[in-house]
């Protein structure tokens, strides 16, 4: 397989996924792992695509539908492939009054422990007068939980509520 990473972003409206994937399907492409989510009223897509075509051929396949839907898109040849999942062994939950630097401080402390972020989702909730930042991170680290907790402890003094828990994935 010769995967390319296709990124699409634009104002959200019904039908984006259907029309983009229909164009790819008609063009003989297959899809690999994808991530699609609405962020701040925009719809964002990152998707592994392979059709054996050149980057240019793929681009000309997507351009008409991207134009119609007013989406910006971008293609990158990528290394890697399917079946490379890594199972997380830690979950980190964060919440606090929204202000600059929360993500940088939390992830900086985790990176020092060799923590590999596999998935991160964050949101600003509450109302505009009192916004609250909420984030969940799933990742993998060899480090013991005590080391992660110690690295994150200084954040409590800044009123960022951070909580680490081990994930024991159940196989049944």
């Amino acid at each position, binding site marked *: 397989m010769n995967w390319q990473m296709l990124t699409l972003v634009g104002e959200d409206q019904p039908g984006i996924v259907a029309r983009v994937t229909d164009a790819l399907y008609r063009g003989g492409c297959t899809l690999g792992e994808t991530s699609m989510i609405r962020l701040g009223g925009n719809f964002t897509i990152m998707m592994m695509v392979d059709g054996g075509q050149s980057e240019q051929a793929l681009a000309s396949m997507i351009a008409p539908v991207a134009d119609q839907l007013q989406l910006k898109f971008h293609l990158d040849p990528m290394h890697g492939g399917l079946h490379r*999942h890594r199972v997380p062994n830690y979950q980190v939950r964060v919440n606090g009054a929204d202000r600059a630097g929360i993500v940088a401080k939390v992830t900086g402390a985790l990176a020092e422990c060799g923590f590999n972020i596999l998935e991160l989702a964050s*949101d600003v909730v509450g109302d505009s007068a009192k916004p609250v930042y909420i984030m969940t991170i799933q990742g993998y680290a060899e480090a013991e939980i005590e080391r992660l907790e110690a690295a994150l402890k200084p954040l409590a003094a800044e009123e960022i509520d951070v909580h680490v828990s081990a994930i024991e*994935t159940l196989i049944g």
Partner: protein
Amino acid sequence: MAMLEILQLPDPRLKEVAEEVTRFDEELKAFIADLEETRQAGPAAVGIAAPQVGRSQRIVILDCSKTKKPVENHGHLILVNPEIIEWDGFELGREGCLSVPDYTGNVIRAERIKVRSQDPQGENHEFEMVGFEARALQHEVDHLDGILFIDRLVSRRTDLFQRKVYQKGSKKRDA
């Protein structure tokens, strides 16, 4: 004893509702021994259900005594015709399945349950289970009803929104 073949998605037999066990005989015990051998041969499964090897009967093996971090558990259990009779609380956790290789995802399960079941001799028992063991039992009983964990996956944003409402409660649960 014999190793049995584990059915994998999209085998339609995984979606069938299994029959109640009515004969508690030697054949049942021999099958349970094979089912256990099959569970042990795989990748560290804490449970297995008969429909996963193509036998459409309500039989489950559960063993949460060997997790990396010890959890509350009842040791090695053979549960025939298990029935969940009480549920309480809910909790998000990550699951995978012998029948769905190379995939794990988040599922919401009850935090505490009460289970009524029979043993291979047909005697009745009741168990109260919490946390990981309760989750494992719910995963296996789902197999008996033709449900896979991928039928119960929740969105990656679900947890964020839950925190909004249940922030205090879930902190306590994790402790």
